[in-house]
């Protein structure tokens, strides 16, 4: 198909032709086109369907503010819904589809909604579908959900990657139009580190859309020349295709750079987009302004658009939306469009101006009046004009430009809760005084709507931002005319006149909202959905405010605006996530034996960021229970080894190290002998148990504290808080060594025999008794640490070496232990053995339990002050009926004892009011041959041997259980002291 509406000139590259398809039909355009301009060039005005009424729609704008021309761009997994055709750069092979239709774009079956528009007015959601109630979930909601929404998702994983990045600058300039370019030139020449960001792929802003001159060259040529100079400055970073989406605290701005959106497929390894966090000392907002439409009956037909957009298409893209164009304006800017189009050979049907003193033209007719209606089912064909003298005129036209004045882009000035102020001269809101710190506004964004004003404003803003003294440099000569606007928002008497074309909000809807009592502008927004679509009402909000003001008898500034929030333009979730997705959602922590464990076929479990071996399946084992039972029995019968590197380790040194531990643990440490380890319990300030672990005294002034894996960080943070804030006068130094040492538990009756083959020193029971610790060497000289501590209840040690040797040590242990059938065990077997031994872990230290609950009430020393000891004596935490840690076993050995189940008296009712306690940890004990559990029971210490009911309504378990000691294995502790 030929590009029937292509004009001469423009800034497209006619030597580069791009083939593309829209709704399956092939077209051609040129490099430098957008999808919208290329479609218009090919005579395609119909590009979409409206959200609610499914009315035919074409482009309204030529920029990111576009509400109508939304398409599904690209195919397959790369399909992106709701993409604005006005900003989508054309490339060879571009594939686009229209969206939000049932049937074809021309024959959308859901257009029937338009016939029922009287029933689908603002707030119809709240008034309809009320009866019968049962229909809501099964009928109404599915139908509405099916019909609602705009584009569709591919439901496939996005194959592209997105980056995040961080940039710093002295001056961030948002917008590279005349004001932004002049600001960048001023600051760049002064040697300032500048970032100049613009959402467009062609820098220059409106200069690319106009025929005006700056000095002796066109505006576009001046912009190109400015760019050439800026590119030569090493201190200026130019970022086209980059939308600054929000102003955040402390001079931080968010920006999305579209790196590969203009390509068929991103280059290998390259991101599609980058979310930049910009740290700017100063900022100049030169974001320009957006022209606003005028509301009149049927003002939404394809072909009706902003007059400035018509000018952009003609001057920049060399395209006219139709061969016959009419203009409806309330200011001089609309006439500029007519003049430019006429100069390019487009027939101007007429310029309709509401002002009696409108400029006249020798080239086309200028009518004083209003456009009151339009015709054309799938595209504009005629415009009905009511002239000031009352006569009606019908204008034949395929395009109609609306010019209702300009709204400065104040959004970024308001992201820190600033409010814009009213400027009556241009009948628009301009930035207020309460700008984000360090921000200066320039150009059209500041209400300076002439090119000369923008250039002056840009230079002045740069000087202000940088604190530069002196007069402004001489500016090149350019247009400096006011737009002579007469405020005019909508045509009297219209009803189905669209304000918000994306959410189908009409003048009638705003009036209805007011009639129904929604008087606050925020209520108007929510009730009508005005400005709530992806375009955030950039072309609609002001019209709604004006009508609301009129209805309420107020001025527009009295009505005020809604809150401006980031992002400025729609932002893909993908770029917010960046690289943090899938396997890279969070970093992994691998244990020193990870490589070896992988070789053994270990099954891993995530514990925070750690990956820990959960069990090691062997050939022939068909369930995890088989593996775990084997690992437990092998450990208790001979020897097992488990990687416990993940336990937190904190190096505590200083002359007050022991005194410090006396503060953070509720039990005493001051008298712990060098070479000994002690179990310790930490309490929170409120007396609740925080964490437990051990502290090994390697020297008078040197301890190594261990924490649980889960609490490694919170405990270290707590210890630093205590050191820095509570006891700054103590001589104590802390540093985490969790990852510095590879540490393995070697447990079981043969553990000593095994380690004796590796450790260079004597580790007999006499030389190295229970709870001993020491710096040692292994394998003939490697420095190591040995602790005789046991979580399993067996004769056990924990041995540590510098992490680099962790893999080698594991292999050495397996080699040395072969004669004892040494068995690696994972976290499941670890858990089973600690339950068998009755050791509390995370399930018991659950943020609600005290030392008393855990059966360690007497550990809270009364001889010293420690954190939490005083509040642990609170009345509510003591006295009769407190929960007490107990063991639980089924009366019938075949019954389960599930974690989370609750204990009820044997003959009592089963309800929450009679709850006696609950199970915290449960497992199958291969040593005992039945399920066992530990949990908390009211007055549990005095209820040993009692039979109770255990109920779990959720898992439908109801069994009889017996309360026992939590120490199922070796309650006297003989094994671990052997």
């Amino acid at each position, binding site marked *: 198909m030929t590009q029937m509406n292509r004009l001469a000139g423009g800034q497209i590259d006619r030597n580069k032709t791009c083939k593309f398809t829209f709704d399956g039909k092939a077209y051609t355009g040129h490099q430098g086109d957008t999808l919208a301009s290329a479609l218009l060039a090919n005579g395609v005005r119909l590009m979409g369907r409206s959200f609610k009424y499914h009315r035919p729609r074409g482009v309204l704008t030529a920029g990111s503010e576009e509400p109508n021309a939304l398409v599904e761009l690209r195919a397959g997994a790369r399909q992106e819904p709701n993409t604005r055709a006005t900003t989508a750069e054309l490339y060879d092979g571009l594939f686009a589809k229209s969206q939000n239709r049932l049937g074809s774009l021309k024959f959308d079956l859901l257009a029937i909604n338009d016939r029922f528009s009287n029933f689908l007015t603002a707030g119809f959601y709240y008034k309809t579908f009320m009866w019968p109630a049962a229909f809501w979930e099964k009928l109404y909601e599915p139908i509405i959900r099916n019909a609602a929404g705009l584009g569709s998702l591919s439901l496939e994983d996005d194959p592209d*990657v997105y*980056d*995040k*990045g*961080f940039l*710093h600058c002295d001056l961030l300039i948002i917008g590279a139009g005349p004001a932004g370019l002049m600001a960048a030139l001023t600051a760049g020449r002064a040697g300032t580190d500048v970032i100049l960001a613009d959402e467009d792929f062609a820098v220059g802003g409106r200069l690319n859309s106009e025929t005006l001159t700056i000095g002796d060259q066109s505006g576009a040529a001046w912009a190109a020349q400015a760019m050439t100079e800026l590119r030569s400055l090493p201190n200026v970073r130019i970022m086209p295709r980059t939308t600054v989406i929000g102003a955040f605290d402390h001079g931080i701005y968010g920006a999305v750079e579209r790196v590969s959106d203009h390509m068929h497929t991103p280059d*290998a*390894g*390259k*991101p599609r987009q*980058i979310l930049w*966090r910009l*740290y700017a000392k100063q900022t100049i907002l030169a974001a320009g302004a957006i022209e606003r439409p005028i509301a009149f009956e049927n003002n939404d037909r394809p072909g009706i658009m902003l007059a400035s957009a018509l000018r952009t298409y003609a001057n920049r893209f060399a395209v006219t939306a139709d061969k016959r164009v009419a203009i409806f304006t309330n200011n001089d800017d609309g006439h500029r469009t007519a003049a430019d189009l006429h100069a390019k050979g487009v027939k101007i049907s007429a310029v309709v101006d509401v002002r009696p003193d409108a400029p006249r033209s020798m080239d086309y007719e200028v009518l004083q009046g209003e456009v009151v209606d339009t015709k054309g089912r799938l595209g504009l064909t005629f415009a009905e004009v009511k002239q000031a003298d009352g006569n009606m005129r019908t204008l034949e036209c395929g395009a109609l430009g609306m010019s209702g004045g300009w709204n400065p882009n104040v959004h970024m000035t308001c992201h820190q809760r600033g409010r814009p102020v009213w400027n009556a001269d241009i009948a628009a809101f301009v930035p207020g005084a309460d700008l984000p710190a360090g921000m200066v506004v320039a150009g059209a964004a500041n209400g300076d709507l002439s090119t000369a004003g923008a250039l002056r404003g840009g230079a002045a803003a740069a000087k202000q931002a940088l604190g530069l003294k002196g007069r402004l440099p001489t500016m090149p000569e350019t247009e400096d005319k006011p737009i002579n606007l007469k405020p005019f928002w909508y045509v009297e008497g219209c009803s189905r006149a669209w304000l918000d074309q994306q959410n189908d909000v009409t003048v009638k809807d705003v009036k209805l909202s007011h009639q129904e009592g929604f008087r606050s502008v925020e209520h108007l927004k929510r009730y009508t959905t005005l400005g709530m679509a992806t375009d955030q009402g950039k072309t609609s909000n002001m019209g709604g405010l004006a009508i609301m003001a009129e209805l309420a008898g107020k001025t527009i500034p009295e009505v005020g605006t809604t809150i401006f929030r980031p992002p400025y333009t729609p932002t893909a979730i993908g770029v917010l996530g960046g*690289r*943090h997705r899938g396997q*890279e959602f*969070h*970093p*992994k*922590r*691998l*244990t020193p034996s*990870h*490589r070896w464990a992988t070789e053994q076929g270990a099954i891993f479990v995530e514990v925070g*960021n*750690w990956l820990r071996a959960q069990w090691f399946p062997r050939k022939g084992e068909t369930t995890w229970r088989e593996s775990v039972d084997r690992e437990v029995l092998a450990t208790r019968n001979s020897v097992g080894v488990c990687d416990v*590197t993940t336990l937190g380790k904190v*190096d505590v*040194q*200083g*002359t*007050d190290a022991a005194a410090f531990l006396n503060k953070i643990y509720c039990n005493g440490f001051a008298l712990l002998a060098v070479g000994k380890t002690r179990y310790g319990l930490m309490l929170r300030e409120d007396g609740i148990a925080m964490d437990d672990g051990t502290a090994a005294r390697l020297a008078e*002034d*040197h301890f190594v504290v261990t924490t649980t894996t889960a609490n490694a960080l919170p405990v270290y943070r707590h210890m630093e808080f205590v050191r820095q804030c509570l006891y700054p*006068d*103590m*001589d*104590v*130094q802390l*540093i*985490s*060594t969790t*990852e*510095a*040492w590879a540490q393995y538990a070697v447990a079981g009756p043969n553990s000593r025999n095994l380690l004796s083959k590796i450790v260079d020193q004597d580790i007999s029971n006499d030389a190295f008794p229970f709870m001993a610790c020491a710096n040692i*060497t*292994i*394998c*003939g*000289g*490697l420095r190591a640490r040995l602790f005789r501590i046991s979580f399993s209840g067996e004769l056990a040690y924990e041995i540590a*070496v*510098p*992490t*680099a*040797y962790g*893999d*080698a*040590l594991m292999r*050495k242990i397996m080699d040395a232990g072969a004669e004892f059938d040494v068995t690696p065990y994972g976290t499941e077997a670890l858990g089973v053995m600690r339950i068998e031994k009755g050791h509390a872990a995370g399930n018991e230290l659950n943020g609600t339990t005290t030392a008393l609950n855990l059966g360690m009430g007497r550990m809270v020393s009364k001889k010293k002050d420690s954190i939490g000891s005083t509040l642990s004596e609170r009345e509510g935490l003591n006295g009769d009926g407190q929960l007490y840690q107990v063991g639980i076993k089924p009366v019938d050995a075949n019954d389960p004892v599930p974690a989370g189940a609750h204990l009820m008296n044997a003959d009592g009712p089963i309800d929450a009011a009679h709850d006696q306690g609950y199970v915290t940890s449960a497992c199958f004990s291969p040593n005992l041959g039945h399920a066992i559990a530990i949990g908390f029971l009211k007055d549990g210490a005095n209820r040993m041997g009692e039979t109770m009911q255990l109920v779990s309504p959720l898992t439908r378990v109801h069994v009889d259980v017996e309360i026992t000691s939590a120490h199922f294995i070796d309650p006297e502790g003989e094994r671990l002291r052997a």
Partner: protein
Amino acid sequence: MHDLQPLTALGGTTAQIDSFAHITIAENDGLALASVAARLGHEAACHKTLKKLLGAVPAPGKAVLHDPEAGFWMGPDQWMIGAPRETHELLADTLDALFGKTASVTEQTGAWVCFDVTGLAMPDLCERVCALPIRKMAAGDAQRTMIHQLGCFVIRRESADHIRILGPRASAGSLHHTLITAAHAVA
């Protein structure tokens, strides 16, 4: 002598080097590390020993790139000292003897993975992974920052296109992956 074969943080027996058009990411497995924290009341003596060792006391945000030992500031009166592992395997013991009771010394060699990132595109890579103002950092600047949610130290070395990144060793693979993907993105 023991016969235990150490592994690098990335799990190899030799350090891994990844080269791109304008960037090289080299795992540095040759660093011995130890932290030094001044004891209360002995700060001056500790500083004196540090100065003697490094030539200067590393100030906040700074490293002293002294040969063979180097150090950077980690916190108030707390520094990390580094030296070639080949010659300083027992660096912590050496420092402990040197500082005596004026400082607490802790071995940190096994706690960190170290990457040397060099090349013209190093600043571009740095901007993709962390919030540091890399283009304004001078030789000897040492900053704590987050890379892929991991707390890291980044040290600008003598050459303008060289940074050294110290990150948590257990997450060496994740950190390496982040650097490699960033290198692909900027190469």
